[in-house]
């Protein structure tokens, strides 16, 4: 299945949200990579991946997400993921990607976390 993407930026300009939809497999993973790369460059502090619409993720997709996370972390930013579908969550779990990532059960949880971080640091989250 093809992959579509919706991107939005928060009002404070510090957080970008990406909503992929469809199948994140070997054929479509390069598309996600292409879309994420320009977003990560620069001073972005938090990238949110809302995975509600993603029905399928293969190791190729997981690799793109892990790479994005690392690139962000190198610049002091963070990648936050929410709304993994059960089968997708299972794949992440199998490859033990979860301990390294910030994965939330819902967007509300994620937003609470974000807000808490901003309060704690008195600024953008680390």
């Amino acid at each position, binding site marked *: 299945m093809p992959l579509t993407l919706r991107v939005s930026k928060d009002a404070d300009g510090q957080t970008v949200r990406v909503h992929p939809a469809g199948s994140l497999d070997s*054929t479509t993973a390069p598309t996600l990579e292409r879309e994420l790369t320009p977003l990560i460059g620069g001073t972005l502090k938090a990238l949110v991946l809302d995975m509600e619409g993603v029905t399928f993720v293969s190791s190729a997709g997981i690799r793109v997400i892990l790479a994005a996370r690392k690139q962000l972390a190198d610049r002091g930013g963070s990648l936050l993921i929410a709304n993994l579908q059960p089968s997708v969550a299972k794949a992440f779990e199998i490859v033990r990607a979860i301990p390294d990532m910030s994965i939330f059960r819902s967007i509300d949880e994620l937003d609470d976390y974000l807000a808490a971080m901003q309060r704690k640091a008195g600024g953008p989250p680390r």
Partner: protein
Amino acid sequence: MEPRAALAEALGGRSVLVVEREPDAGGSLAASLRALGLTVASAGSGPEALLRLAREGETAFGLVVLAGDLPGMGAAGLERALRGRPETRALPVVTLPGAPADPVALLGALDGGGRAMPPFDLAGQSARLGLAPPELAELLHAFAPQAVQHLADLAQLVAARDAAGARREAHTLAGAAGNLGGAALQHAARALEHAARDGGDLDAPLAAVERAGRDLLASIARLAVEAPAAERAPAAPRGELADRRVLVVDDVPTNVDILARALRDDYRITIAGDGESALRSVAHAPPDLVLLDIMMPGLDGYEVCRRLKRDPATRDIPIVFLSSLDEAPDKAKGFEAGAADYITKPFEILEVRARVGALLRAKAYQDAVRELLESELRVAREIQRGLVPRDFAALTTGAVECFACLEPARAVGGDLYDVFRLDDRRLCLVIGDVSGKGIPAALFMVMTLTLIRGIARLSGRPDEILARVNDALAADNPSSMFVTLFCAVLETDSGRLVCASGGHPSPLLVGPDGAPRPALATEGTLVGVLPGVAYPSAELALAPGETLLAYTDGVTEARSPDGGLLGDARLRAFLDGRRTGAPRETVAHVLAAVRTFAGTAEQADDIAILAVRYGTPTVPDAGGLALELRATLDDLARASESVRGFCEARGVPADALHDVLLSLDEVVSNIVTHGYRGDASGRITVRLALESDHVRLEIRDEAAPFDPLGAAPPDFQVSADARPPGGLGVYLARALTDSMEYERAGGENRLRLTRALRRPASE
């Protein structure tokens, strides 16, 4: 015998009279003669000497030594005076340039009975050798101690009655002496050499050699009055052949020296001191010509020559023997060994230069002609390769796949193949073999190919094609060449094959359903000999997965190094083990088998192999899904859609379907990326079957062997983004499926996975 002892013996107790300006000065001739253990009387001038001789009696003295710079009447005048008087005429006289007195020169004077020795003809010998006189003088001085050694060794060998050793030593001495212009010593040594060869008396010839040796040494000693020669600085070689390299091989350093000096203005010179080093030098950097001595320790010149002529890499280097063996049998043996020329020593440098130059010019011409021919052949080979189709992916039609190869035995050859479309349903296949090899066969091959292509477009029937090609070739064939041809037309949607053979060995049918067997029973007539021949037509049908394998007799008539033939039976047995491979692999395997069988033997005949496969072998599938993919991600996406559609239509639960699709994605993307490494023509087969309680998925590819079960799992101790990439996909697939099995068979990787339709809820 040691010089001092010889002197004492020759003098027999008599004194030596020294005539020099200041006999009592330190460093005088008189003093040096006393140092030699001789009894010395001295005179300070010519008249004083004459007086002394008259007073004490000429018999009291055994030798008169004159200083070269004697004042007054001078050394020459005194010598004339002594000759003029009967009492002193026989008295040995020698003029020396100065102290210290050279005992060898003294011996020479004593032995020669006092006769005036002719001075060494430095000018004449230098001219002969093409050297400047001071250069030759230097070489002679360098030779003197070697000559003393040779004489001593010779005396020992004769005393030990070692005839063979004496012969060798005498030969070497004769050669060196002759080279340098010492003719008397050369002849005496030669006489000793022949005496040793013929088993005659050696003592008398040895005495003659020793006499001649001492004469020569005395002459050389006289050359000391010349100023030491300044070494002529070697200039770079000049002339049209200045970059040619000449290897000079001789075990006597003097000989090498002379030749090197004489030739180094014209060519680059390399030297070797014996046969073994000569062969090593040639192997390291082949020269353009070899000047070769014959008598050397170890390998002699004949053997060196023979070995160089045996090796194809050095066969064409001209070899010139340069030897003092000057008898007809020696020369004949030299030419028999393969030499281009034979020059005897002592040589005239003009002659050596002329002959070397002529041979090098001849070789340069030969090399130029060969290079021209080879470069034209290289171009011709490329043209010929371009004539036969090589883009087989473009020729793939429906279920038909083909591949072929062409390997001429020489640069160009007479085998041919062709594959081309007659229309979108029919493919024309041709393989053939022109009589002979090389350029004539290649030209005939091009003509045949062109004719077939033209005629096939007019007539789609192989029997007619062969008949008309035959008429055209036979009509204008003065050299009576012929070609064997097999021609077939294949319907790509049905596998139906119509074919005809013009004297060509029958192709084989290779398939999953039985052992390889010939496609045709009869071979028909050769093409191109007689016009008006009819060719029988045959029809057959290729079964799904069956391959038509056509070849030329370069395959079946390949010879192994011990002379065995590959043969039909061996070819069939080989194909029997590879019945289901794709055409590309089948052709590669057959060619590899021929090369392995032939081993080090040269390819004797041109080779052509053509394989055409109809469909892929299908396994009986009860209600399953079978897909053929190319190794592209697009094909993977389409395959995934097919699997999804198939499974959803049959009520496979979503989670099982998800895991099956994920496993398919992981396995196939690995094959595309790592197995076929991006080669989009790689084939992948996917088969899916639904059992009562599980899904069975089989994925096959023809890439290099790879067992995913053998791959190490990712290192989960390391954080995810610090791990090297890879291994994740297989790991995922294994985790999501219930079983995974790997097999390597029929040239394929085969992976089988199963996934239960329903898993217990705790999973």
